């Protein structure tokens, strides 16, 4: 499937995707932006914590764990190249 948009927390581990939009406002949005997550940023879920939430993501060469409340606000679409 190409270019299907889904929230980041539903992206399976090991799949690379690009950010298409941010579905949040205010403080949460700022927080996401401060992580350098903007449209077009590539993100890959690396591994889940023992309980499945949070999940560790590879973002711009750094591993960052996000809880699903935040990652569900980041809309991505799978890399068509991958």
């Amino acid at each position: 499937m190409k270019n299907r948009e889904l929230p980041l927390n539903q992206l399976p581990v090991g799949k690379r995707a690009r950010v298409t939009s941010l579905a949040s406002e205010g403080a949460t949005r700022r927080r996401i932006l401060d992580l350098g997550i903007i449209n077009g940023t590539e993100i890959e879920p690396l591994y889940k914590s023992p309980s499945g939430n949070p999940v560790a993501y590879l973002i711009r060469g750094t591993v960052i764990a996000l809880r699903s409340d935040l990652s569900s606000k980041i809309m991505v679409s799978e890399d068509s190249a991958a």
Partner: protein
Amino acid sequence: MDMSSEAAVVDACSHCDLHIEKHLPGDKIVALAGNPNVGKSTVFNGLTGLKQHTGNWPGKTVVNAQGRYRYKDRNFIMVDIPGTYSLMANSTEEEIARDFICFGEPDVVVVVADATCLERNLNLVLQAMEITDKVVLCVNLMDEAKKKKIRIDFNALSSRLGIPVVGTSARSGVGLDALMDAVSRITGAGVHLSPLRIAYGEGIERAVSTLEPAVKNVLHRRINSRWATLRLLDGDESLLSSLNDYLGYDILEQGQIAERLSEARAVLKRSGISQNLFRDQVVTQIVRTCESLGREAVTVEDKQYQARDRRIDKFLTSKLTGIPVMILMLFGIFWITITGANVPSSLLADGLFALIDPLNRFFAWISAPAWLSGLLVDGVYKTLAWVVSVMLPPMAIFFPLFTLLEDLGYLPRVAFNLDNFFRKANAHGKQALTMCMGFGCNACGVIGCRIIDSPRERLIAILTNNFVPCNGRFPTLIAIITMFFAGTVGGAFSSVTSTLMLTGVIVLGVAATLFTSKLLSKTILKGVPSSFQLELPPYRRPQIGKVIVRSILDRTLLVLRRAVIVAAPAGLIIWLLANIQAGGVSLLARCAGFLDSFARLMGLDGYILMAFILGLPANEVVIPILIMSYMATGSLTDFESLSQLHTLFLSHGWTWLTAVCAMLFSLMHWPCGTTLLTIKKETQSVKWMLVSFAIPTAAGIVVCMIVANAVRLFGLV
């Protein structure tokens, strides 16, 4: 300006309680900024020769530390500010960092960046460059980058950014000279840099040019007007209040600012840029610039450089192995601590207590009155000897081990593994990190809570930090376990039993923390968990030898200092209380008698409860107080080892239940005096300090009563 050499104190930043003392008016202030966990503190230590503790996890430095160094006959005052990803602040520590760079008037800002993920770090560099021209980029961790086959073109970077760029490996001191040289050069007179200016696109730039002239008129060059204009347009409330504090007036009420601001907003509106979109565009433009700089200056030869970290992470955090490995690791550390502490502990005790006889003989020889030798030898010296021999060895073993894990980068993985529990308790995932700090000292743990940006969750973390046994309580727990539970099994298993019990106590402390956090979230601190992000840094090989030597020395000095400052005076007071008689009974016995019936409900006795109360200044002295109280009333005249102590306690009616309840109460009772004062300072509230006193105390009383009465009810003791 007064050119005399008298020290001038510059109140650089009223928000961060920071006073910078310039020895000479020509001294230069260097702000050391950077993302969390890029080795900023290592650079700081390398330059100033100070020993700020460093660790491989984001948020280690939460307070501004300052130190000075000399280079080419000039003095530099370096201020280590908390790590931050951005100057558009979200948390208290980010605010501190931002306020110092913006309003602390540093002569130069050194931004330390991680060479292994330079692109992301450039975000902060670009933001700092908007505030001041005098920025030096220090690309640290070059040794790690080399291992990962990452190459960085410093010349390209420097010419694109328009600022000096220096590569360093601060751990081994490589490049620090070049860094000092660059700092020294750009603080020289008449040096002008013209750093890269980011253009934010037509709409925003037009709004800026509408507003900036008015801002410039008001600011009188105190702050970069373009930067201030952008922030005004952005409408960052927290920044605006800091800005007004700094200026001493409300900028919006000055000149034509308000008028021009609404004009500029109208310009933005016409270009279709809403408040949200404004921030988006600004950030996007900065990030795109970082990307393009990264493409130009960074070459990654080996794309698989993180493969090893990934494998380790999968093992340490997976569903199957994550939590078991974590508990095993805790168990391992405790086992080494308990087993390893035995021998040095008894050696120290033998050595220190062997001095008692000569000391007594000395006092007899100078014909000192009995009360004087009693006060100094039985009171002060014995308390000191106890604290040193029992507290020192476990701490000198536990802390190096813990520091190794910390330097390796394991602590953020602990937070990652446990986050689910904290989320369910409506608390913050980084609370796990502040709890780890609590092992060292609860007051430090409380200060560490600044890494938590939501005020509600920060308060929860502060109020519950005391459920982690600190430096002063940890050895007490070990001593009680060794006396009452290790001996019953005997042989090789005894240390395993002790370790299991200790692990159990710590797990209980964690459970109490989670339960209380949940309870607070449902009652006086209602709210849902806020979103948060946690960086899992690359693993770094700790400098094992250095860590061990350093932390053994640090801990030894700390314990000795505490012993002298707290234990010695406590010994003096207790001896007086135990030996001043009123109506044939000592004051201590009177107080203990008064507390006795209540204490017995909790499975303790009056003396134990009394010892905890008198231990308020410092938890280290609880057991020494108890020993002295018992000795003053009992038949035993001396104690030299834990087994003798065991006998002493048994003769005063201790059972295994007393031991369990004493441990529970040690884990759950009021924080020590220092921690209470720190809580008052951190929360700016006496109320929260009292709450932090009440919560663990109530928990301890309730738990002890339940345990004691249940055990008695079932006739187990």
